[in-house]
């Protein structure tokens, strides 16, 4: 039985995951294994005056204690940000030095100053406690508000006022004119709350140095092992690429946090050379809260103007974003090129201006987290649309319809050229599924039980499938964003696909196999996917930004095109037919309209035996392709959330959630629905529960699951998920990417529903019972005062 695109194929990888046979980085154990524990600063900002390692070194089983001066002395380079942003005055962004182990200063709680290498993990940790660091405590800025104040302490000398860049996109004068001409202007102050990524598997690294070969092997929890090797080699000077193998085996979730190359991986590699031992480090959950790059953390003021018909005349956004203590790998691009270009949403807006200022603070670095910039943009656009509709007395769905882009391609004033979509259709689907017509009845029924029922929309677009390399390069990216694939047909006809994409929960071993099985009409079990090892797989860019389907699978398709062409030549030669008449179906390669055929496996065998190939043809059946998209892909969706709020306690229950998405062609609906479920759940977590809190001294107060609330099953409803497929014209499968949509679209839908229920638009995330209760009280006071 062959498998087709669109089939609900069960995940091939789940047998090993559900039976405990997955092999994660921490499962690797080498001979000669030693363990690393990091000595971390308990202060958010301090000068390091001295490190006394004598107590730790005196302990039996401690192999070495290493510090930042030794690390930089050995020529290990500083950690860099890979996307150059230029301020509107033409000055480059101000990137402060970030050494894997701090040398002179620590800049956030958790900043590593030394590493203990010991015979056991427990001993390494005990010895790390015995390392005495002499800190001279400095004043702290723990928020962008504090960082912006006159006289605030400087975190990096290159940025005396802590500002990294002051950047803009769009035409400010035209936007001001558009707002001036408006008959109604909606203004909102919005906060996008800071989040901790919380992948189920914490970060881990095991580095082994082979002194005979001068070769390093690194097992690590990475979403992009080739990028890790490139950066470790070219920028951190750990070793040349041919002397460094990076393996990302099974990885238990990433959400962006495992894109970056962190101090711990670099330190483990270097320490393995220093000690000539295999060095292993696995983060515990407290370290993960302290050191995994956080997400979001924006403060925004937005103004949107409308004419008398409810058409948008101008949209102006002013955002301050927190970068944290150092610039992480993609940190500069998230609040700029992954944010402002999304401000047109699904709407035909002629005038948009977005200004973004970013600041250093004494907090852990902030970088991409599921959606990366696009959830922040969507939250601004969709809160504005809903609020404006209420202020103008219009149905929120109707206001959106009046402004929807109706024809494609569509060029926005903020860089993006949308290629395809059908926004009214998706909204209509969502409204039908959500039974919007019956909402008034449900609201009345809820009221009879003393509950406030509300409904909220979010109609959103995302730019996925990162990305055309040339476009990314022109915007400052330091790398290309293509993807690679090798399709290797074995002599028995089974197939291995080597992909530069990386699966850490996405189900690539199933979906990538599915497109091959569909193309060559063979069982999905005959196809294996190989990924995550730089020694096995050709260079690839990895998985983030919902790019594995639109970019990674497209490379597989291009390689399959080459395989198919060769198969047809081999079969045409053997069957004495024209290659134009050869078709591949039912496990056979046949001459169309005849009974002349070879089995699929016979063609493979013929290619490798090479007794009867066309003159001049090379033996073998293995093809490589690189795919560089010509545009982003633009998934879009309409989410409708219904909530019931208890006015006495402020507790919100999400009673109904409808997600209608346009992901283009769907390879495996079951996996796509899983991605939507997970993404929406993360978005609900942001909207209702999650919030990283630092106190004014830069101490992380949400350092465990006692204080940082993740969504649980009881916090979410059973989702209604619908699909409408308008294929992307820019890749061979017509796919758009589905990994981030749920997290991008859902927070404003939830908040719009709560604000509808309570009759107060002034509500920030997370909408905890306390926050909602206060908003209810504020609304009733303002009514009483009128």
């Amino acid at each position, binding site marked *: 039985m062959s498998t087709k695109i669109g089939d609900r194929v069960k995940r091939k990888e789940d047998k090993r995951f559900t039976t405990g046979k997955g092999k994660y980085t921490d499962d690797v154990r080498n001979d000669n294994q030693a363990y690393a524990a990091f000595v971390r600063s*308990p202060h958010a900002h301090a000068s390091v005056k001295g490190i006394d390692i004598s107590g730790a070194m005196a302990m039996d089983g401690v192999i070495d204690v290493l510090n930042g001066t030794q690390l930089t002395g050995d020529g290990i380079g500083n950690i860099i940000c890979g996307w150059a942003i230029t301020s509107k005055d033409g000055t480059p962004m101000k990137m402060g030095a970030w050494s894997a182990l701090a040398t002179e200063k620590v800049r956030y709680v958790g900043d590593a100053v030394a590493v203990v290498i010991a015979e056991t993990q427990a001993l390494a940790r005990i010895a790390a406690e015995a390392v005495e660091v002499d800190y001279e405590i400095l004043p702290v800025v723990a928020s962008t508000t504090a960082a912006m104040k006159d006289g605030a302490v400087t975190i990096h000398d290159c940025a005396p006022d802590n500002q990294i860049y002051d950047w803009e996109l769009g035409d400010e004068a035209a936007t001001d004119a558009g707002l001036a001409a408006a008959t109604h202007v909606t203004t909102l102050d919005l906060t996008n709350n800071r989040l901790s990524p919380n992948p189920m598997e914490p970060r881990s690294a095991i580095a082994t140095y082979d002194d005979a070969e001068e070769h390093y092997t690194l097992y690590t929890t990475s979403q992009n092992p080739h990028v890790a090797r490139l950066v470790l080699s070219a920028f951190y000077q750990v070793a040349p690429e041919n002397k460094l193998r990076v393996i990302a085996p099974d990885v238990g979730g990433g959400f962006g946090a495992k894109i970056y190359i962190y101090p711990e991986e670099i330190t483990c590699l270097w320490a393995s050379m220093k000690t000539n031992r295999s060095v292993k480090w696995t983060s515990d959950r407290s370290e993960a809260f302290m050191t995994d790059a956080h997400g979001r953390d924006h403060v925004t003021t937005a103004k949107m103007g409308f004419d008398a018909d409810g058409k948008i005349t101008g949209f102006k956004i002013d955002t301050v974003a927190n970068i944290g203590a150092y610039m992480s790998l993609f940190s500069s691009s998230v609040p700029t090129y992954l944010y402002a270009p999304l401000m047109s949403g699904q709407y035909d807006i002629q005038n948009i201006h977005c200004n973004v200022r970013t600041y250093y603070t004494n907090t852990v670095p902030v970088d991409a987290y599921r959606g990366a910039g696009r959830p922040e943009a969507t939250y601004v656009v969709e809160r504005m649309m809903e609020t404006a509709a209420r202020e103008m007395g219009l149905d929120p769905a109707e206001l959106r319809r009046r402004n929807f882009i109706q024809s494609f391609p569509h060029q926005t004033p903020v860089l993006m050229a949308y290629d395809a979509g059908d926004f009214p259709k998706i909204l209509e689907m969502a409204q039908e599924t959500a039974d919007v017509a019956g909402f008034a009845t449900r609201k009345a029924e809820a009221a009879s039980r003393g509950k406030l029922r509300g409904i909220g929309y979010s109609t959103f677009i995302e730019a996925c499938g990162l990305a055309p390399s040339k476009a990314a390069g022109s915007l400052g990216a330091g790398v290309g964003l293509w993807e690679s694939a090798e399709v290797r047909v074995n002599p028995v006809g089974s197939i291995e696909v080597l992909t530069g994409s990386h699966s850490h929960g996405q189900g690539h071993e199933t979906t990538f196999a599915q497109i091959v099985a569909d193309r060559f009409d063979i069982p999905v079990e005959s196809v294996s996917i190989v990924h995550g090892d730089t020694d096995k797989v050709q260079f690839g860019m990895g998985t983030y930004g919902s790019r594995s389907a639109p970019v990674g699978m497209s490379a597989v398709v291009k390689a399959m095109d080459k395989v198919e062409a060769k198969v047809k030549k081999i079969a045409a030669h053997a069957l004495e037919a024209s290659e134009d008449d050869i078709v591949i179906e039912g496990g056979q390669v046949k001459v169309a309209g005849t009974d002349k055929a070879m089995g699929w496996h016979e063609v493979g065998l013929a290619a490798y035996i090479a007794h009867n190939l066309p003159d001049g043809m090379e033996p073998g059946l293995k093809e490589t392709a690189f795919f560089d998209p010509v545009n982003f892909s633009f998934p879009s969706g309409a989410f409708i959330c219904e909530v019931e709020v208890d006015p006495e306690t402020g507790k919100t229950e999400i009673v109904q959630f409808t997600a209608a998405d346009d992901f283009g062609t769907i390879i495996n609906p079951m996996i796509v629905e899983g991605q939507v479920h997970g993404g929406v759940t993360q978005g609900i977590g942001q909207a209702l529960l999650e919030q990283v809190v630092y106190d004014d*001294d830069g101490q992380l107060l949400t350092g465990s699951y*006692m204080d940082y609330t993740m969504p649980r099953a009881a916090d979410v409803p059973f989702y209604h998920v619908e699909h409408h497929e308008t294929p992307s014209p820019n890749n061979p499968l017509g796919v758009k990417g589905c990994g981030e949509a749920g997290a991008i679209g859902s927070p404003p839908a939830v908040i719009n529903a709560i604000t509808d229920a309570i009759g107060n638009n002034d509500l920030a995330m997370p909408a905890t019972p306390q926050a909602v209760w206060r908003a209810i009280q504020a609304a009733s006071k303002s009514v009483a005062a009128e």
Partner: protein
Amino acid sequence: MDMTGEYRIAVPRDVVWAALNDAEVLKTCIPGCEELEKTSDTTMEAKVVQKIGPVKAKFSGAIELVNIKAPASYTIIGEGKGGVAGFAKGSADVVLTEEADNTVLSFTAHAQVGGKLAQLGSRLIDSTAKKLANKFFDNFHDHLGNEGPLES
């Protein structure tokens, strides 16, 4: 976090002042204090064991007396390092006022914690710090042979 308190102690001010400057008395009164040694007239080194929420740690720290206006007031500053548990530091302005043969001791204290203590015990810090401050002054008060606190 800031705390204030006031105690009436039925001994003359000079006696209270002397006790406040006596390392042995301080050692007896500081909750969890295992060692306390004077390193000069105004500085001491201490080892204190404390449990805050899930974190138990031995703090090694320095105590310093500043703003000394004998026998009326001083500021006592303490800073302790608890290894991987983080750090705690605090200060208290202590004022002694004569009232007939009695002494009124009033204090304003400020405490701050960092590292794992802040991450895991932040919700418990306020109540723990209040408890410890009160415990110290209760002990001190009892040490001088007095009845319960006037106000705390």
